C-alpha cells in the first residue's frame, strides 16, 4: 500500500513541477527536434545555420550576454574544430564536431572560424593607454556583443518593449524549443496598433515584428531558406545555447545509470547472501 502511495507522490511531484501557466495562447506545435530523446544529440549543421540567423537577424535587438564567441568552438559547440588525418592524401583536414575516430581537437583560441566570427564584431573596451572608451575587433574570449548598453536603452529603441536576453531563453519559456519555433512562425500577418498578432504568444499580441523573411539569410549548405527552416534552425541554436553540455550530460548519464544498475544487482545479491538463513 505504502509503495503505491510513494509512486503516486512522485508522479504528483513531477506533474506539479512542470505545471503550465494558464494563458490564452495556443499550445506550441510539436516539432521532432533531434535533441529531444534521452539519447538525442544536436543537429550541428542546424545549430550553425541557426547561429547565422541569430547573427544576421536576432542579434540586432537580442543580447546573448552569457555566451562568449569561444563557446562556439569549445568541445560540444557548433564550430568545434578537429584535424583529421586523410589516409589517401596523408594530410590533416579540418572537421567540425568530433570525428568518428581519431582527430585532434584544435584549441578554440587557435580556431580560425571562431576567430573570424569574433573579429567581425566591434567590442566596446577601454584603451589601456588613454583610458578612453574605444571599439576594437572581438576576440574569442569576448562575450557576444550586446546590441544595447542596458535595458533602458533597449526599451527606448523598441517602443518600450524589452527584447529578452536569449542565452537561456529555451529554459526560460514553457515549451522550450517548440515554443520558440512556433512563435517565430506563428504570425498571422495582422497588426493591432503597434502589436502583432501571434497565436502562440501569451495574450496573443507581441511587440516583436515578424523577424524572419523568406530568403533573407542565405544558406551555403543548400538548406531551404524558408521561414519555417529559419525558425527551426534558430530554435535549435538557442537550445544549444541554453544547454551546451547536453550531449556530454546524456553520454555520462548512460554510463552512470549502467553502473548503478550493475551495482544495484551486485548489492542485491550481497544483501540476499547476508540475510540467507535469517528469518525476517
Amino acid at each position, binding site marked *: 500500500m505504502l509503495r503505491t502511495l510513494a509512486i503516486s507522490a512522485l508522479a504528483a511531484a513531477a506533474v506539479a513541477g512542470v505545471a503550465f501557466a494558464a494563458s490564452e495562447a495556443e499550445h506550441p506545435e510539436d516539432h521532432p527536434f533531434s535533441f529531444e530523446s534521452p539519447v538525442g544529440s544536436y543537429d550541428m549543421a542546424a545549430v550553425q545555420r541557426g547561429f547565422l540567423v541569430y547573427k544576421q537577424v536576432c542579434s540586432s535587438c537580442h543580447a546573448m550576454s552569457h555566451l562568449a564567441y*569561444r563557446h562556439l568552438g*569549445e568541445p560540444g559547440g557548433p564550430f568545434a574544430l578537429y584535424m583529421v588525418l586523410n589516409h589517401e592524401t596523408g594530410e590533416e583536414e579540418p572537421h567540425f564536431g568530433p570525428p568518428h575516430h581519431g582527430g585532434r581537437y584544435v584549441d578554440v583560441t587557435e580556431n580560425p572560424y571562431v576567430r573570424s566570427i569574433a573579429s567581425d564584431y566591434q567590442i566596446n573596451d577601454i584603451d589601456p*593607454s588613454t583610458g578612453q572608451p574605444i571599439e576594437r575587433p572581438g*576576440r574569442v574570449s569576448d562575450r557576444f556583443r550586446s546590441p544595447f548598453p542596458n535595458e533602458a536603452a533597449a526599451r527606448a529603441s523598441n517602443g518600450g518593449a524589452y527584447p529578452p536576453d536569449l542565452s537561456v531563453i529555451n529554459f526560460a519559456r514553457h515549451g522550450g524549443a517548440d515554443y520558440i519555433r512556433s512563435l517565430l512562425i506563428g504570425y498571422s500577418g495582422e497588426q493591432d496598433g503597434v502589436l502583432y498578432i501571434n497565436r502562440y504568444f501569451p495574450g496573443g499580441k507581441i511587440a516583436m515584428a515578424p523577424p524572419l523573411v523568406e530568403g533573407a539569410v542565405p544558406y551555403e549548405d543548400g538548406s531551404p531558406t524558408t521561414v519555417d527552416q529559419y525558425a527551426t534552425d534558430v530554435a535549435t541554436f538557442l537550445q544549444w545555447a541554453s544547454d551546451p553540455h547536453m550531449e556530454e550530460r546524456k553520454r555520462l548519464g548512460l554510463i552512470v545509470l549502467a553502473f548503478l544498475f550493475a*551495482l544495484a544487482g551486485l548489492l542485491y545479491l*550481497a544483501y540476499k*547472501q547476508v540475510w*540467507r538463513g535469517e528469518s525476517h
Partner: protein
Amino acid sequence: MAEAKPNDAHGAQDATRRDFIFIAAGSAGAVGAAATIWPFVAQMNPAADTRAMSTTEVDLSAIVLGQQIKVMWQGKPVFVRHRTPAEIAAAQRDDYATLKDPQHDAERIAQENGEAGKPEWLILQANCTHLGCVPTFVEGSSFGGWFCPCHGSDYDTSGRIRRGPAPTNLPPAPYLFVNDTTIRIG
C-alpha cells in the same frame, strides 16, 4: 560487509560464491566512489573562460624609447620594455657565462615560435623569481635594470639575475610579432 562471518553450513562452493559477490560488490562500490570524486576535484581547475583569457595583444607604437609598460596576461603582469641602444649594448655584453642562470640576450628576446626577436623589445614575465614581487626598473642601478624591493634581487637590462636571492632570470613571456608594431602575448 567483509565482517560477515558465515556459518559454514553450505559448503565450500557457496563460500566461494559468497566471497565473489562480496568482493565484486565491494570493488564496484569503491570504483564508483572514486569516479564520483573526480568531478569534485576537477572543478577546481581553471574554468573555460579563465583558460580562454590566455592571449593579450599589445600595440608597441605607443611605447616610447626607454619606457616600459606593464600589461596583464593571465592575471599576471608582463613587462614590455622599449630598450635604448645603451641598454641593448649592456644586455648583449659577453659577460653572462659566470651568472647564476647564464643565458644570451638573443635567447631572452626570441619569439614563441623560435624566430629571432627585435633587440629593442624585451618582453618579460614581471614576477621576481624569488617570491613573486614585481621588481621596479631603476635608472642607474648597479646593473642598469630591475630591482626587487622585497628582498633586493638585482636584474640587468636583459632581466637576468645578477645579485640577490632570486634563483633564476625573469622568464621571457611567450609572444609573437603579429605585425611590425603589434605583439600577441600567449
